[in-house]
């Protein structure tokens, strides 16, 4: 501990040095690249058996790896595939793989969030797929099965950097038992923010229940932006980025922050402490599963991977999920006030997998990546737990079996808005999170919105910011 500063500086310096050295040599994991010799490929993703994204981890370990190795050995090649599991917060995972890639290391195939593609591509950490994987990439059959909107999640400046692994949307989940206790309808479809607040006020009468959980603060990271600020912003008709400019303290942002103030500071409809806990999001999941949260804004991920009644898949399994948990579209502030005049809004994210440019066996790595995204692989992937795949052919077969995901596919995906695929976005996202944190902490929405505009100017420069329309 004595030389903590020095160690930190030394660490930073040596990281840089490693980066420089690696840029000149060809680093990377794995065994020898000679044909005929044994080859090792590695996959990494923020998924771990028995924990986060368990279904994906089990699928990679129990199906992808044995099947791919068997197929390769039939072709006379000795290939070993290793899976490096992670089960941490997305921000920590991102830090780790950014450091991996910067130092010229890392797995051959890396699972990343679509929103990191821009900044990683600009840093040269990842490259267009066809530059890494060769000609086989562009002639792959899978692209025809994926819509442009789905592909765009892993693209940057019109180049494909990775293969998307699904599409998703956001809804309001609500606990039907609590709704019944509060005298609210089981079949609920609010058409404005005010109606959501009204329901929350009714739920407030029940002891030990948090009426509304709306993600806020920096501890929740991107979850605050995706399941909080952005859907609200879309409901006011404004966007974080439009017509080539970043929007500052718009009326829409002020209204969205005002809703946070109403829920957390003024009426106590949400639990402000939950927003600051290090494991706040996981705790919010556990509390919803325990019937302690009335209304929760989340993605379909929550339905599939969190409250999934299958205990080996759900991180907070709810045995009676299908009976108790309702889901409904997120209303705009007022009917018709949403982006493009919509009554209801949603945000679409999207994760995927990229090839590591430092891979010693890039073409083989592409073969593995294509194999992981084949129709057969997706059919296997969704066998235990249905999710919306990027492939139209697979979706047509599997979604019919799950009413919730059919609902998302039919009613939510068409009203999805998307985050700007720009390198500056992650920093802007943090500034939005800070604005919500300030409001939950008691700062006035106007002040927080002004502070956000200042932060935005610091990030992208004054010339790229459209000042508030107020």
């Amino acid at each position, binding site marked *: *501990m*004595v*030389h*903590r*500063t*020095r160690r*930190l*500086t*030394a660490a*930073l*310096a*040596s990281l*840089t040095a490693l980066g420089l050295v690696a840029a000149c040599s060809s680093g990377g994991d794995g065994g020898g690249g000679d044909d005929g010799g044994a080859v090792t490929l590695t996959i990494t993703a923020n998924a771990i058996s028995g924990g986060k994204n368990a279904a994906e981890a089990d699928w990679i370990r129990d199906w992808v790896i044995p099947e791919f190795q068997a197929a390769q050995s039939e072709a006379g090649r000795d290939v070993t595939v290793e899976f490096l599991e992670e089960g941490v917060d997305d*921000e*920590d995972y991102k*830090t780790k793989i*950014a*450091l991996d890639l*910067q130092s010229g290391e890392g797995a051959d195939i890396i699972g990343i969030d679509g929103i*990191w593609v*821009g*900044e*990683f591509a*600009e*840093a*040269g*950490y990842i490259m267009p797929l066809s530059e890494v994987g060769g000609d086989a990439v562009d002639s792959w059959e899978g692209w025809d099965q994926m819509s442009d909107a789905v592909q765009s999640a892993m693209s940057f400046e019109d180049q494909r950097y990775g293969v998307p692994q699904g599409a998703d949307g956001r809804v309001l989940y609500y606990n039907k038992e609590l709704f019944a206790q509060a005298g609210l309808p089981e079949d609920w479809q609010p058409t404005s923010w005010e109606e959501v607040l009204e329901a929350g006020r009714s739920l407030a009468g029940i002891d030990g229940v948090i009426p509304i959980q709306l993600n806020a*603060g*920096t*501890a929740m990271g991107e979850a605050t932006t995706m399941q909080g600020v952005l859907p609200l912003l879309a409901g006011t008709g404004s966007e974080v980025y439009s017509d080539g400019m970043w929007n500052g303290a718009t009326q829409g942002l002020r209204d969205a922050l005002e809703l946070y103030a109403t829920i957390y500071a003024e009426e106590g409809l949400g639990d402000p*402490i939950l927003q*600051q*806990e*290090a494991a706040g999001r996981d*705790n919010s999941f556990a509390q919803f599963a325990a019937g302690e949260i009335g209304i929760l804004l989340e993605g379909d991920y929550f339905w599939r991977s969190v409250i999934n009644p299958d205990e080996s898949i759900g991180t907070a399994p709810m045995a009676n999920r299908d009976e108790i948990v309702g889901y409904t579209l997120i209303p705009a502030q007022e009917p018709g006030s949403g982006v493009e005049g919509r009554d209801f809004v949603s945000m679409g994210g999207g994760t995927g997998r990229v090839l590591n440019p430092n891979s010693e066996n890039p073409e083989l790595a592409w073969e593995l990546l294509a194999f992981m995204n084949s129709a057969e692989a997706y059919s296997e992937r969704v066998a235990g737990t249905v999710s919306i795949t990027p492939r139209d052919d697979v979706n047509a077969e599997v979604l019919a079996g799950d009413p919730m995901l059919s609902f998302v596919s039919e009613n939510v995906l068409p009203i999805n808005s998307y985050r700007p695929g720009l*390198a*500056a976005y*992650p*920093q802007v996202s*943090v500034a939005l999170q*800070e604005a919500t*944190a300030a409001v939950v*902490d008691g700062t006035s929405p106007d002040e927080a919105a002004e502070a956000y505009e200042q932060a935005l100017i610091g990030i992208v420069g004054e010339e790229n910011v459209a000042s508030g329309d107020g």
Partner: protein
Amino acid sequence: MAGLGRFGAGAFVAPALALIGLFLVFPALWTIYLGMTDYRLTGLQAVDPSFVGLDNYEQILGDPAFWRSLRLTLVFVLASGIVGQSLLGFAIAWALRRLTGWLKSVVETLVLAAWVIPASVASFLWIALLDRRGGTLNEILGTQGTAWLIEHPMAMIIIFNIWVGTAFSMLLFSSALASVPPSQLESARMAGASGWQQLRDVVIPNIRGHILTNTLLITLWTFNTFTPYLVTAGGPNGASEILAVYIYNTAIPGGQLGVGAAISLIMLLINLVIALGYLRVGRARAARPAEATAAETAGGAATS
């Protein structure tokens, strides 16, 4: 140098100098350079950082978050290091000085255990103790639902750090108290001095050097410690973001490596000032022969 010659002596020192150059001087210079660029973990500036001169320093010094962090660090060093660890360590050493046998061993072992347990394990224990839901402390006090780490983050990491670090002061003061000449204490007692008077007029003058050494080391360690990150991660919203944590949060998760390097340099300078201040006090003491012995003893204890 007799018998070795300039060249021979140089050859002996060369490896050490090379190591210092490689692992201390080079990183320090590199930090100065990085601190003047807009180098980032990702994005365009990761491949092609540009030289921005003193912009980073201007940004840092104009950032309220930096000043808050510095203020929190001072509070942390004063409360958990100088006051908490030193006083508690001395109190335990004083209470144990005439004890022997198993009781002494038990107390010493418990205090040492806190020091020896790996930081990651210790912080997990503290998180379990202070957890909002089902935390041990809440069960004991009957204060279910109190989020100690959210509501009192600074107080918690201060107590945590006192718990972790008291052992060092205890050990140092134990050996210091053993070096107080019994004859002096005996005479004081014969003259009718009370316990407090013995402490003030006999013990403290004898161990002044130790106190100085202890305070310096504790100050530097506490100033630079990163362990509280494992308990609160600097949160909530920066309320326990001491300087080392602030640098990490800025440089790695925040991705601003250039700014992080600039803050590191500021921190390095503060460290230097503390160390120089100590050296000056130490030299002034050494110049006074009457207390020279005490200072030497202190030096010996510190390096052992």
